[in-house]
């Protein structure tokens, strides 16, 4: 009998907070089971061991913000069979894409005494802008159960069960009373992709859009409702402009409320 080799999994990091790759280590109940079926071949945050590619699954965290990283991502694509960008940084440019609305030089000067030492691009951009991506897993951070579902589905040759409808659907299913209708709390749920389990509304808070835009979001309609709720344009602009600020529907929405 021949010994079957396990598929190789690699984790790559670009500009990010490390939270999405940490999600894998946060799968306390599932981690050892995952390592039974895949070989952790390159995951520097967890291991010194580096096994050479090509890799069957590559998880890419973070956004592209430096000339060096814009080169590195191509090498990773060439050595990866199934490449998934994970989290808002990798799928939309992340919170650091707030630089895209300003001149990055102004930011460098605020943070660093010797701007000449800093090599950075003008924009923070998602992985998809640089290479073909096989799947995008949303969230700031990602939902660890969606990550396991994605790996599981891929290993078994089926489509992952990861919906692209809005947070509202999840919210209704959980039986949560709409925070916008009942309490007048502005909520990005109608335009945000599901995946978190309608977390914020279940904590008496409006959704702040960390899973990014749903399919075909009607941001203009939501913006008009927010205006009717006496929300100021600057506040609506800021609501659309956070962890997924550079995702196109949210970018256009925030720009339309910018003075």
């Amino acid at each position, binding site marked *: 009998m021949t010994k079957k080799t396990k598929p190789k999994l690699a984790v790559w990091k*670009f500009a990010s907070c490390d939270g999405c790759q940490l999600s894998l*280590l946060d799968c306390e109940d599932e981690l050892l089971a995952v390592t039974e079926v895949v070989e952790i071949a390159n995951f520097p945050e967890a291991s010194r061991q580096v096994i050479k590619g090509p890799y069957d699954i590559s998880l890419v965290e973070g956004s592209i913000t430096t000339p060096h990283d814009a080169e590195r991502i191509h090498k990773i694509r060439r050595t990866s069979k199934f490449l998934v960008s994970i989290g808002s940084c990798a799928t939309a440019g992340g919170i650091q894409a707030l630089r895209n609305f300003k001149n990055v030089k102004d930011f460098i000067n*605020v943070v660093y005494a010797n701007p000449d030492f800093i090599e950075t691009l003008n924009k923070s951009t998602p992985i998809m802008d640089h290479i073909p991506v096989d799947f995008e897993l949303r969230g700031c951070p990602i939902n660890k159960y969606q990550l396991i579902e994605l790996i599981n589905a891929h290993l078994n040759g089926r489509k992952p069960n990861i919906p692209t409808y809005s947070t509202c659907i999840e919210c209704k299913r959980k039986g949560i009373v709409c925070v916008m209708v009942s309490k007048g709390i502005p909520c990005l749920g109608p335009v945000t992709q599901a995946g978190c389990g309608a977390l914020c509304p279940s904590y008496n808070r409006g959704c702040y859009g960390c899973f990014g835009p749903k399919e075909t979001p009607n941001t203009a309609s939501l913006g008009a409702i927010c205006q009717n709720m006496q929300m100021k344009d600057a506040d609506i602009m800021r609501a659309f402009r956070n962890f997924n600020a550079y995702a196109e529907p949210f970018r256009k929405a925030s720009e339309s409320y910018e003075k």
Partner: protein
Amino acid sequence: MKSKTIKVDYLARVEGEGGLEVKIKDNEVTDAKLNIFEPPRFFEGFLRGRKFTEAPDITARICGICPVAYQMSSSHAMESACGVSVKGQLRQLRRLLYCGEWIESHVLHIYMLHAPDFLGYQDAIQLAKDYPDVVNRALKLKKLGNDIVALIGGREIHPINPRVGGFYKVPGKEELDKFVEPLKWGIEASLETIKLTATFPFPDFEQDYEFVSLRHADEYPLNEGRIVSSKGIDIEAKDFLDYFEEEHVQHSTSLQAKVKARGHYLVGPMARYNLNFDKLPEIARQAAIEAGIGEECRNPFKSIIVRATETLFACHEALQIVENYDMPNRPYVEIEPRQATAHWCTEAPRGLLYHRYSIDDNGIIKDARIIPPTSQNQKAVEDDLRHLVGKNLDLSDEDLTWKCEQAVRNYDPCISCSCHFLKLNIKRE
């Protein structure tokens, strides 16, 4: 003349991207650098123009491992700016949330990032093959910390429930009661962790550090206290920048902090432990003494025992809070913004986390400054490397490189934090 360089391009089992480079010439260490190449993200830049209430959600994204620390420092700073103090059970809930993060972060580091060095494994997954019970205990203890953060914060990473003034929603008594038995188990598991880490082989290596941490009159420090040091500093957070400064060096996208008067210093578990031993609960003091670290620990490799002791503290403290919990009537204190500048420090798992904000009457952030623990420890790490390599020049390059990596991991560096970044090169010329 013999010279060489010991170099690690990409350090493993640390959070974020960094490396190290040590240059040796004629058996003398000529240079030791912690290279930090994590791409900068400019948080202080884009906080300008945001609302004061947004700071906890935005700054949490500096670090996926210790988001609670950023939420706590920023919330307290904003409350201080607006002249509000959050007290009673809301204050206790914040301490409980922080205990959850300490448990989750410390256990991750002890078992998954640090222990494999002492036991000669590449990672915890390989460790699990030989010591399944140990790794399973670790995962269960880490999960306990995460479960606390998830209950109070909404989720483990980037919690959504904390806000300036308190929380969006507070848990009922019965929800916290569920943690009584798990936390009692957590205390036992922490005691086992202290005993296990005490059996690890430790190099004979001590340094004369200046330890810096918070100190509080009645408690082991989490969210508040004066900033004290083992060399006589005793100040309020607002005076931090009078005593400490940051430098921008070419090999690091993280700024390096130092005590203006003296140079490098150390923050984190060892500093807290040495400066607050008397505030630990009896059970933690006794376990630490039995583990042989004494009331003062100066061997950075033994920080793993200190982390285990702090995990015990966190479980013990969490249990006290849970047992004495009374659901507050209101989940948060209303806060009206006013023009002010405020400073606050809390104790992130890796050490002192300083935030300063200036806001205007409308609550718009005009200026922000954030100094995370890893940028404060960079110089101490480089000093450790210099001395450690100097004492171990007879080791093979491979062993010396691993030893250096381990010395960096002693600090549980969070490079994502520090740039708001790390890379080892040992050069022998």
